[in-house]
């Protein structure tokens, strides 16, 4: 029986000729990851195993990103515990804040994950690296501890859902809108325990940054992993981040998929997930144009350079609405630097946004942008659960950088198309795409708003 891409990677790392869905296996790991929230628990548990050293000091990555630069004494203590451990174990991939970034942007940028590899991380968004054609999945701290000692982890081989992409996105629509649309379609447990495997001619139209955004939110559909085929774009990206050899994997022609979905990229529109579930999606045309207090652009979902370019292209030469707090946080120091060089930081600051150092900060309601009772935020992050960004009576709306930036200007939920066409704004459209005019009905609804 044929294997899916995910199954083939698992089989190869378990030393088996083939595996099938439901089988429990033990597999060799190429990278084990943890952050300043999960690693301290893992380090404590690691101590109980009673081994002297980690299995491979080059195959562990420790990233202090959630509460850094340290927001209080307790988080400083946690980071110190991680730093001391990294030092003691001589961990090569420990990233102090001057070289850091949000783990899921940093790990690929540093070439620590390549096609065909197997990665676990004590963070649920470890599934991000599926964009690179790797099998990567989130686990807990105890798994991380055991893996740091043994270099292996147990897996239940997942069944898969194949998502075939056709056509090409138009206008301001981007990878974020595709994944929000998909989660809206199948629900927050629509892919529970399963792989989401992307396929079809539409894949080639997606940039690597978009693929990272999409794979990042596979977990929001409950998936174990999300994975993209390895194509020319993947190979070019891999060559730009690492010179390590890798073995790309393709699904078998007769691979078995539990379910098949087809998405026409040209039919997608900017999409917003309303509180309090990522699956609670509406097309921007059908969304109430609610007043917004804060806009957050960044995170491991949408804090990459393309995201900042889109946001800056909308905010450039304009001002965010009076009373609006617009917070931008580039995902890594490299991205921050690129944004500086390209003049994006200046555009953003001039427009009235604040630009933070890389951190998870506001995404998880940690620091750098907490919401008060009754406040509403539009964020390019990945979760809008109750209390995610602050008070339990605050609200988070998930959207793309384009929708977030347009909303920052309007002071309410806004369609970038509408904002960029408004009098005095000129008729600017996403540079790479022909002027994508939304369907007539959506336009009419927008005009009413």
């Amino acid at each position, binding site marked *: 029986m044929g294997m899916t891409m995910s199954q083939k990677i698992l089989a190869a790392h378990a030393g088996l000729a083939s595996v099938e869905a439901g089988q*429990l296996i033990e597999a060799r790991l190429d990278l084990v990851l943890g952050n300043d*929230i*999960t690693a*301290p*628990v893992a380090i*404590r*548990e690691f101590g*109980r*195993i*009673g*081994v002297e050293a980690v299995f491979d000091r080059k195959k562990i990555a420790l990233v202090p990103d*959630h*509460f850094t630069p340290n*927001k*209080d004494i*307790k*988080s400083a203590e*946690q980071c110190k515990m991680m730093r001391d451990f990294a030092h003691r174990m001589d961990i090569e991939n420990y990233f102090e804040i001057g070289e850091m970034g949000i783990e899921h942007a940093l790990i690929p940028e540093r070439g620590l994950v390549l096609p065909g590899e197997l990665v676990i*991380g*004590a*963070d*649920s968004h*470890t599934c991000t690296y599926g964009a690179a054609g790797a099998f990567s999945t*989130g*686990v*807990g*701290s*105890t*798994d991380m*501890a*055991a893996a740091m*000692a*043994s270099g292996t982890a*147990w897996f239940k081989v997942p069944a898969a859902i194949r998502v075939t992409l056709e056509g090409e996105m138009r206008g301001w629509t981007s990878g974020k809108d595709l994944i929000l649309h998909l989660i809206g379609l199948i629900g*927050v*447990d629509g892919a*529970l*325990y399963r792989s989401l495997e992307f396929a079809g001619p539409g894949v080639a139209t997606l940039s690597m940054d978009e693929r990272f955004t999409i794979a990042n939110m596979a977990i929001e559909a*409950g998936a*174990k992993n999300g994975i993209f085929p390895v194509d020319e774009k993947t190979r070019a990206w891999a060559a730009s981040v690492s010179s390590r050899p890798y073995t790309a994997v393709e699904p078998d022609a007769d691979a078995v998929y539990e379910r098949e979905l087809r998405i026409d990229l040209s039919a997608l529109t900017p999409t917003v997930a309303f509180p309090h*579930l990522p699956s609670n999606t509406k097309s921007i045309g059908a969304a109430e144009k609610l007043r917004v207090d804060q806009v957050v652009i960044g995170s491991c979902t949408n804090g990459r350079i393309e995201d900042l370019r889109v946001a800056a292209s909308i905010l450039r030469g304009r001002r965010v609405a009076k009373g609006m707090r617009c917070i931008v946080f580039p995902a890594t120091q490299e991205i921050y630097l690129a944004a500086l060089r390209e003049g994006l930081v200046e555009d953003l600051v001039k427009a009235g946004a604040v630009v933070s150092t890389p951190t998870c900060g506001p995404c*998880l*309601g*940690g620091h750098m942008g907490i919401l008060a009772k009754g406040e509403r935020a539009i964020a390019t992050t990945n*979760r809008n*659960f*109750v*209390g*995610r960004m602050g008070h*339990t009576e605050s609200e988070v709306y998930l959207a793309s950088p384009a929708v977030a930036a347009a909303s920052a200007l309007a002071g309410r939920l806004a369609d970038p198309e509408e904002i960029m066409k408004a009098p005095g704004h000129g008729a600017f459209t996403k540079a790479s795409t022909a002027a994508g005019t939304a369907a007539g009905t959506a336009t009419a609804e927008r005009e009413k708003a």
Partner: protein
Amino acid sequence: MKTRGKTFKYGDNIDTDVIIPARHLNSIDPAELASHCMEDIDKDFVSKVRKGDVIVGGSNFGCGSSREHAPIAIKASGVACVVASSFARIFYRNAINIGLPILECPEAVAAASSGDELEIDLSAGTIRNVTKGADFKAQPYPEFMRSIMDAGGLIEYTRSRLASKGAAAKTAR
């Protein structure tokens, strides 16, 4: 092993952000985590929960982040078992790995109301709703997971495995 306690019932998609909000993740102390357990969905949980009580949830229980602080908080609060229609994948894994008993049983969930007295036999996988006078059988654990649980959790399991590997390597030499 048998446990008996009161039911705290919640709905579908109970996420790790409400089980233990991120603002408390700057601690790894089980007792401190337990003192904030479920506070964003049920302010009274912490003051009412007693040793042996049971959390009953709908589908996709424990979805969201991979924070092991969630099952740790539940376990440290005295909860003997979580019964749900289904569990989010990482939560399921974490619970097994740290030795928090969990059972998947949609029928028992449908029948239970908050406050019901539940008697659970973990090794048999049976759930008796004493208040309603009804019996249920949960999905059994796969054998591999049983061996992790029997060892007392993944850490103990890994320790004994690495130790026996080390011993084997020594004899081979």
